[in-house]
Each structure stands twice: as C-alpha cells, then as structure tokens.
C-alpha cells in the first residue's frame, strides 16, 4: 500500500519571522497552499492509496473560512483516494475547529478521539489514529495502548518522540510524548507522525518535517514522504521536496571592503546565488569610515529574491586598543565604555556609535 505522509504545514501561520511586508507574507501563505496542492499532486502522480496528515495542518486560532473551502477542495479532489487527518496541537479538534464544523468530503476521515482508533486500510492492514482534543497537555497516545487484532498495524498521530526531542530547536514542547520502544510494545509496525519540524526517520517512525519553510535556518530533507507498506509491515520511504518557497540563511563576509559600494556589491553577488526568501547576515571587519546602512541593501533589486532580511553585524575596523591609549576624548570614551563591562553587543554598539559621532558621522544607528 502506498501512502503519502506529511505534517506541520501550519496553514495561515504568520510570517512575522521573515520581517517582510504584508503582501509578501500573504504570498507566503498562498505558497503554503500551493505546497498542499503539490502534495495532493504527488498522491495522484504516485498513484498512492491514501494521504496521511500528521497534524498541525492549519492554525486553529488563525484560519479563515477560505482555508476550510480550500482544504475541502484539495482533499475532495483526491477522491476516491482516502485522506486521513490526525489533528495536532495547533489544529486541535474542538467544537469550533475546521474538523468539526466543515462538511468534509466522503473520502476524508478525521480521527476525532484522543486515543488511537482503528481503521482498516486493506486486508490485514490497520491504521490507528488519534487526535489532539486540546492545544496542550495531551497524554501520549501509546501509553497503555496495545493493538487488539492481527495483521500489520501502522499509526498516524501528532506526538513527540522523546528520543528525538534534542534534535529540535530549543523550546519545542513534547506534546503527546512517546518513546520509540513503545511502538514495538504496542504492536505497531510503524508510526507516521508529525510535530517535529526537522525530518527524522527511523525504522519505526517517520517525521516528514514541515514541507514549507517556517523559519530561517531550516535544514534540508523536509517534505512529503511517499511510503510503501509491505504486507509484512516493512516500510520503504522516499522524501519529496515539495516546498514552494526557498528560504536561505546566508552570511556574507565583507571584510576588506573599503566602501559602501563594495559592500553592497559583495552582498548583491552573494544574493544572486539564492532565490525566494533570504536572510543575509553581513559580517566582517570594514573600515571605520565605511558608511553602510540597511537601507542601502534594501534597495537591491534581485529578480529571484522575493524578500530579503538583512542583518548588519559589521565590525568597524577601529583599533580600539590603540584608541584606548589616545589622550583624547575619544580615548577616554573608549576606555570608559570598555571599563563599564557592558553586554558585549551593547558595548560594541555604544563604541561604534560614539566613535562615529566623534568622526562627524550621522549614521549613528548600529545594528
């Protein structure tokens, strides 16, 4: 049996993290929808039997009526192929969630209990699914669970495999936690799960990761997973990159650039290698006289770049040690600032700001 599994699409999520304009953010949300369409297309192209969603399909607090119509159309368009949805902690199943209020096509099955429930996918193949019924404090679905029939058993739910938690970014909460060993103890051959945004696959579980970027700095390997479940419970998997948006987090070292123009040119050259959404962190030691502002970079026009977030982390080539020995106001200033033992970043910014002011410059905002 062939299954396409995805999770953590987070439709309607804000893109404040991109720091982009409203229209760009809206376009990103449109891109999320196109990703789901791509996944649906993958189901058709691969002639998969079913589509699995491991939760966090959308944002409960943010979704719009248009989202519900969109989902209905996409999933309904897959008929007669079955679509199985396991609500997560962001799209938890409540009385006012889309899952409860939308009139879903007949080929869509929503697991609506907070304990694993069986659905027969094929002769001898049982799918166990469960839903988050609250945004938090959902107990592990595998706690005390054991399959009650013979055959091959697979599971679909939104939960945190505790052994993988350390791979995630700091602050990731372990909703509906479980341990890999519990899968075997429960009699499950494999679990298709969601929650972790970083893709992770073991012999017993599959986290496909978020198929569309949700932050800068995400690694590769995320997307939709085409899984073939064998009659003996074996799993063959292939991950498809279905992302609509390319998100790059790059560092551009402009050390040695002697002028704003050189820096802008260097950044432009670096950006030409990328597309989509880019966060460019400009680093390096430049001359103290170099006057480059974020606005200088924001003026760049690159056809493949939808939006770019610039972070200027330039170190002015001030010889602070030498200045410290100056018997000038500048020397006193640097000495006092350095003696104040400020936060290093604040110290840097205060020093550069003061030195620029003493240099007669008016670009006193230091990132």
């Amino acid at each position: 049996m062939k299954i396409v599994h995805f999770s953590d699409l987070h439709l309607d999520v804000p893109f404040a993290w991109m720091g982009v304009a409203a229209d760009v953010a809206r376009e990103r949300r449109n891109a999320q929808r196109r990703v789901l369409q791509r996944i649906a297309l993958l189901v058709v192209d691969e002639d998969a039997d079913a589509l699995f969603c491991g939760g966090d399909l959308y944002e409960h607090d943010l979704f719009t009526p248009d989202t519900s119509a969109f989902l209905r159309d996409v999933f309904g368009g897959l008929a007669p192929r079955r679509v199985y949805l396991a609500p997560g902690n962001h799209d938890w199943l409540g009385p006012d969630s889309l899952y409860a209020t939308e009139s879903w096509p007949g080929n869509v099955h929503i697991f609506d209990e907070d304990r694993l429930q069986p659905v027969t996918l094929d002769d001898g193949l049982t799918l166990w699914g469960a839903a988050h019924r609250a945004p938090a404090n959902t107990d592990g679905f595998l706690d005390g669970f054991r399959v009650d029939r013979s055959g091959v058993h697979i599971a679909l739910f939104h939960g945190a495999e505790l052994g993988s938690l350390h791979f995630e970014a700091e602050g990731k909460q372990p909703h509906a936690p479980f341990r890999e060993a519990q899968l075997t103890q429960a009699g499950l051959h494999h679990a298709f799960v969601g929650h972790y945004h970083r893709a992770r696959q073991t012999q017993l579980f599959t986290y496909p990761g978020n198929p569309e970027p949700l932050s800068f700095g995400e690694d590769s390997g995320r997307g939709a997973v085409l899984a073939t479940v064998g009659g003996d419970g074996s799993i063959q998997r292939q991950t498809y990159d279905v992302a609509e948006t390319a998100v790059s987090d790059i560092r551009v070292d402009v050390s040695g650039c002697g002028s704003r123009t050189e820096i802008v040119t260097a950044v432009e050259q670096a950006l030409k290698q990328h597309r989509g959404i880019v966060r460019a962190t400009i680093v390096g030691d430049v001359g103290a006289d170099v006057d480059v502002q974020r606005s200088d970079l924001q003026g760049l026009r690159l056809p493949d770049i939808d939006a770019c977030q610039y972070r200027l982390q330039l170190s002015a080539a001030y010889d602070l040690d030498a200045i410290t020995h100056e018997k000038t106001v500048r020397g006193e200033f640097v000495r006092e600032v350095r003696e104040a033992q400020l936060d290093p970043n604040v110290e840097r910014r205060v020093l550069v700001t003061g030195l620029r002011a003493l240099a007669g410059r008016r670009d006193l905002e230091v990132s």
Partner: protein
Amino acid sequence: MWIERIRAGAFGPLVAEELEFGPGMNVVIGPNESGKSSWHATLFAALCGMRRSRGAPRADDREFANRHRPWSGSDWRASAILRLADGRRIEISQDLGTMVDCRATDLTLGRDVSHEIMTDGSPDGSRWLGLDRTSFLATACVRQADVLDVQRNAGALQDALQRAAASARAESTAAEAIGRLEEFERDQIGTERAPTRPLRQAGARVAAARQELQLAEQDHSDFLSLSREVEEARAVAEAAQGRARAADAARAMVDADALTQRLEEARELVRLFPDGEPAAPSSDEEQSRQVASTLDRWRRKPTLLEVDGDTSSMIRSRIAELSEQSEGDTEVHESVARAWTDWTASGAVLRQLELERPEPLPAPETQGHSVADLFGYASALSGPSARLTASPESPLWYLASAALAVAGAGCLAAGLIVPAVAALAVAATLVGIRLMLPRRVLVPPQTEIGADTVQADLSRRGLPTTADALRGLAESALAFEQRQAAIGSWNERHDLQTSRSRSAQERLRAALRARGTAIGESDPIADSFASYEGHCRMRLESASRLQTVRVELQARELKEKQYDSVVRDLAELDEELRQVAARAGVAPDGQEEVAALASGLELWQQGRGERLREFESRRRQWDRLEMVLDGRPLEGLEADARDARSKADTLVAFVAPADVATAAEWLRGSDGQAQHEVVRAEEREARETLATLAERLRLRGASMRDVPAAREECASADAELGRLRDLAEVIRLTRQFMESAVDRAHRTIAPVLQAALSDRLAAVTHGRYVEALVDPETLAVQVRGDGRSWRSASALSHGTAEQVYLLLRVALAEHLVRAGESTPFVFDDATVQSDNVRTLAIMETLLSLTPTHQVVVFSQETEVAEWARVRLDGEQHRLIELRELPVER
C-alpha cells in the same frame, strides 16, 4: 616618525623636485617665490594625502587643489619617505590628481600598508601618529596662512584644536559629537511625547497594530463561536430533517395504504352500480305528508268521555230552592246581640250579689255600752291605752270603692256581665270593710282610776272585769255593728240590680221581635234568643250550599260543552281519514272502519319509508363512490394508488424502518396530522435557523480581519518599537559615556597643556609672560606675567598670540600623538609676526624639541637663516636653501 624625503612629482610650481630632511631640526630657507609654501603643502599632501570624497569635494579641498595643482601637466603627485618609531621605512605616494594610485609601501618588505592608514579613501600617514590629516594640520603642520590668521580668527584655531583634542582626527569636537547624538536621538528616535518623531509613531503603530490584532482575534473568536452555533444548528436541522423525513415517509406510507383501501372500496362500489347512478323514487311527498299528518292527528285524537251526575237543569232547580232558604239573618244581628249581652250581664251581676249576701251575726251582751267604752275599760285595766289608727278612714278608700262601682256599672251596660259583676263586688266589699271597722275608742290619759275601782264598776254594770274579756267583748260588738251595716248596703244594691235585669230583658225581647222572631210575653227570653240564633245558623248553611251548587253548575255546563266539541272533532277526523285513505288507495271504496283505515295508512307509510331508506342507502353508496373517485375514473385512482405506493417505498427506503414505524404510529393517532405539521414546522424552522446562521457565518467570514496579517503587523510594529527603544538606549549610553569622557579628557588635558605651555612661554616671550591657563573645553588660552593679571592670548599682540598658539599646538600635538610615536612639526613662516628676538627664541624653543621630534621650518627670514647656520650642525639637522623658482616651469 620623521620624514626622510619628500618629492613633488608635479605640485604647484614644483616638478620632479625632492627635499631631504634630517631627523632633527630642518630649516628650509628661501626667498619669496622659491616655493616654500608649495613645499610645505607638498610635505603635507605627501604625508597625509587628500580626502577622496563622494560627490563634489569639500571647500577646503577645492581651495587646496586650486592652490596646488601643477601649473603645467596633470600628473599631480607627491610622495614622501618616512621613518616610523617602530623602525619601518615607508614610502607614501599620493596620486592627487585622480586619487587612484595612492598607497603606502613598506620599503623594507615591499608590502602595501595603505590599509593601516586609509582615511576617507586615501592613505593618511598622520594616522600612524594617532592623528589624521586634519588634526595634523591643526597641530603639527602649521601653514603660513594659519599663523597669520591666529589673531583674526582665534576661534577657528581653537575649534580645530578642539577637534584634535576630541579624536586626534579633528573630525569633530566632543561638543559636536554630543550634539550629533542629541540630534540623532531627537530626529531619528524622539520621545514618547513627540508626535512627529519615530518613537511616538512607532508606539502609535504598536497600539494600532495591537488593537487591530485584538479586533482580528475577536473576529476570529466570533467566527469560531458562530461556527459552533452553525454546527449545533446543523445538528438540530439534521435531526429535525430526519424526523420530518420519517414523518413524510410514514405519511406517504399511510397515504398509500389509504389510497389502496380507497381503490378497493371504489372497486366494490363500482360493482354495485353497473347501471350508473341510482334513480330516485316517484315523488309522493305531498301525499306522504298528508298521510303522516292525518295519522298523527289520528294518533292524538281525543277520547270521548261520558258525563254522569245531575244535569245542569237539575242543578239549577236546586239553586232556586236554596235561594229561598237562605233569606233573613244568617247571623245574630247586632241589636239582638247587644241586648242579649246586656241581659246576661245584669243577670250575672245579680247572681253574684246573691252569692255575696252577708250573714247576720248574733248581738253581744254589751249591756248597752258602746264599743268605745268597752275598749276604754279594757285599757283602764291594762294601763295606758294605745291609740288606734285605721286606714279605712282615708278618703282614698272611698274613692276606690266608688270607681269600681262605676266601672262595674259600665261593664254591665255594655253587656260584659262578668267584669261588671266583679267590679261591683269589689266596690261593695271595700265599702263594707269600711263600714265594719270599729270606731276608735279614746280614753283620756289623765283619767287615772284604780283598777279595783274599775273592776268593781264593771262588775256592777254586768260587764267582764278583765281587760282581755273587755277587749273581746268590745271587738265582738264592733264586728256586729259592722255586719249590720254590710247587710244594709247589700240589700240596696240587690234591689238596684234586679231593676236593671228586668229592663235588659225587655230590650232583648224587643230586639228579637224586630228581627222577625215571634215571641210571646211569657216565652222564656232565653229560648226565644236561642231560637233566633238557631234560625240564623240554618240560613247561613243554606247560603253556603247555594254557592257550592252554583260552582257545580258551571263545571257541569263546561263538561257538556267539551263533550259536544269532541264529538264534532271525531267526526271530522273520521272524514279526513277516509278521504286520505281513499287517495292512498288503502280503502278505495271508503267503507272500511276508520281504525282499519288508519292501520292501512300506517302500513302504507311504512312501505314508503322502506323504499326511501333503500334508495338513500344506495344514494349514499353512490355518493361515496363519487367521493372516492373524486371525479376521476377508476383507472385514475388505480394509477394514483400505484404512484403513492411507489413514492412511499422510495421515501421509506431512506429512513430507518423503526423511525418510520414510530412516525406511522403517531400519524395514525387522533392528532397525527397536527403532529406531522409540527414536525414539518420544526424542520422548516431548524432549516431557516441554520440558513440564517450560515449566512451570518458567511458574512462574518467574508468581513473578518486577517489574523496572521495582524500578527505580522503587530510583530513588525513591536520590532520597530523595540529597535527604536534599543537604539534610544544605545544612544543614551553613548551620550552618557561621551559626556563622561569629555569631562575626564578635559580634566586630563588642561593641566598637561598648561604645564607644557607655561614651561616654554617665558623663554619665547623673554619672561614677559610666565604662566598660562588653557580652557580644556574651548582651548582658549590666557597668559599673565609674573604677578600680573590674566589676559586672553587672542588679545595680545599678533606676534605674541602667534607664539602662544604655536606653543599650544606643539603641546597639544605632543599630548595627542600616540604613545611611542613622535610627530614631526612642520611650520611655514611660523615667526613671520615676531621680532628678531622672539624669532630666535622660538627657533631655540623648536630646536629644543628635536631630541624627540623632527622639526621642519620654512622661512624667508635672514635671522632664521643665520640662526640655522650657527645652530644647526651635525647629521640630524639640516639647512636647506631654496632658490627662486623660474617664472616659467
């Protein structure tokens, strides 16, 4: 640092010229037009280069270029070879024309070290000193024009020195830097209260964004809430729809059953009327009505009762007889009655008197003595005698007796015999009592006679001798007297009453006669009265009987009348019956007995009723058939039944059988239809409610704000506000540190400059001024002689001011130059305003710097040349003499 050599590739009038310097004092002497100022500028340009600015060059750069561009050719170049304190030998080459080929090269290593001193786009050798080209020019490289301008524009010099003091790069004074920070904070950040400034605007944007987010979230919350309502309404509607469908299916099933039943009934009825509609019976309605009426009258015919007893004529005869018998008094006439009463009353009184007749008493032996005497004797014997008082002596006694007598007479006259007798008797008694009372016997109290004497006298008189006996005798005598008086009185009254009785009898006799009673004189009056009274009673009875008989007559006459009427009615009824029977054909000859005719008519009536009932029954069946078919042929009904069954089967197929059964059960109930309507109404209402809510949800969804966009805007606004607040904090800290640094720098630099200046001031001014004060903020200088007052340096003579500020520059340069380095001093006509003595003093002062500093002095003064020839010896000092440049180069 010291400068080995400078080369003017092309610089003003100089072309491919070089000057070599020693590390100590270098005096370059030349007349006017020998290029001293050009060499000074070449040295400065070679060492510090020129600012490579974006856009148009600054005014001072333009002026410098105008003054020093090559007079011929365009390859404006200057270079210098330097020795740094760290031992490096550096060549700086400045491409002043294009600013492209400017570099600093470590001549030992052959490396480009330009980056160490790049300033404003070109290498600036003064950076190795810790200065820049501007501060170097302000302190260590004094131009002739600056010397000349000291007094006229001391402020400009101070400003330049302040800039140097601020950063050793002379880009800005500390005050300007602080002002710039303030300006930046004011313009680029602002305060929470400045409405046009970014911070306030960012705050407003945050507030607006948060409000928008709140509204958006509220929109979303409302949307979710409404979604729940819609789902609840949908569930209600679906349930109601299920009930309605079940009811509809049940209704369809019931209707189909009914239609099938109707079809069966129609088929049965059709079979009953093969010939179509039943014919109505012949019309004999009028006859039937007459028969019914006649029979009704017949059944209610009166019964002829026989009238027995006296006939009316007989009764009338009895009335005439009784009328005669009742003529006369039917009751005792008043006059008779009154007379009778009077007579009987008088007789009663008389009889009462007889009963009261007093018995005579025997006469006592009083021996002729009066009662009074006897009582007197008795008293005498027993002592003082009592006085007797008797109430019968009162006049009231007599009045009462008289009144009673009058009343008795009145009663008698009125015929009230008994009261009259009683009253009269009482009156007589009262009188009698009075008359029988003994008279009072009074014995004079003064008469005192002895008892014995009395007794003797009594005895002698034949009277008792004891008091008691005497008193008894007296009392007997008194009683006798009284009885005698009573007897007399009675007799009088008896006579009177006897007379009255006779008179009453006569009046009674007369009255009886007057009322027609025959009475003789000797007839007992009482019998006559009784006879009269008996006749009255007899007449009264006759009169009474007469009235009864008259009533009897009336009744009799009525009965006789009714009887006659019934006889007539029966005769008429018989005739009618015969006629009706004849018309009905019951008795064609009309000879049957009327009872038989009536029975015949009843039979006729029954037969007709049966025929009518049969017709009506068939009519009802026909009507029923028509109703069942409802104007359609039987085939149409069959089609309807088939359709209904098909519809019912279809509807039932979509509903659970149990629900249909339940619905069918209550549909068949008495209020089934009403319940069905209720279910449908509920279903309609639920559907309408759902539609209303769904439309509200749709409208809400269409108009709801975009929460993600609101959150993004909120995050963006927060970030901007955070950026500004963060920036404000950085600016605040920077300014705080800057102000503190300025304060500390001023406190440090002031004594250094003052000491350095004071040390050299006396030598330069030949002791005229020995002490200096330097304002660390403005670098304004005050000087004074020994014990004299302070004077501003700028107010001194031009030469003195020039010397003071020259020393200040030297002191400041010494102070500012990076530790471990020493700056070369370059002066162009630095003593031009000084007299010979001061000039030499200055040169000596400058010479005193040479152990640690290279000094280059450009001068045209003979005194300086001569001083140099005398004082400059050895390898480290140089005297360079320039020739006047040719006019055309």
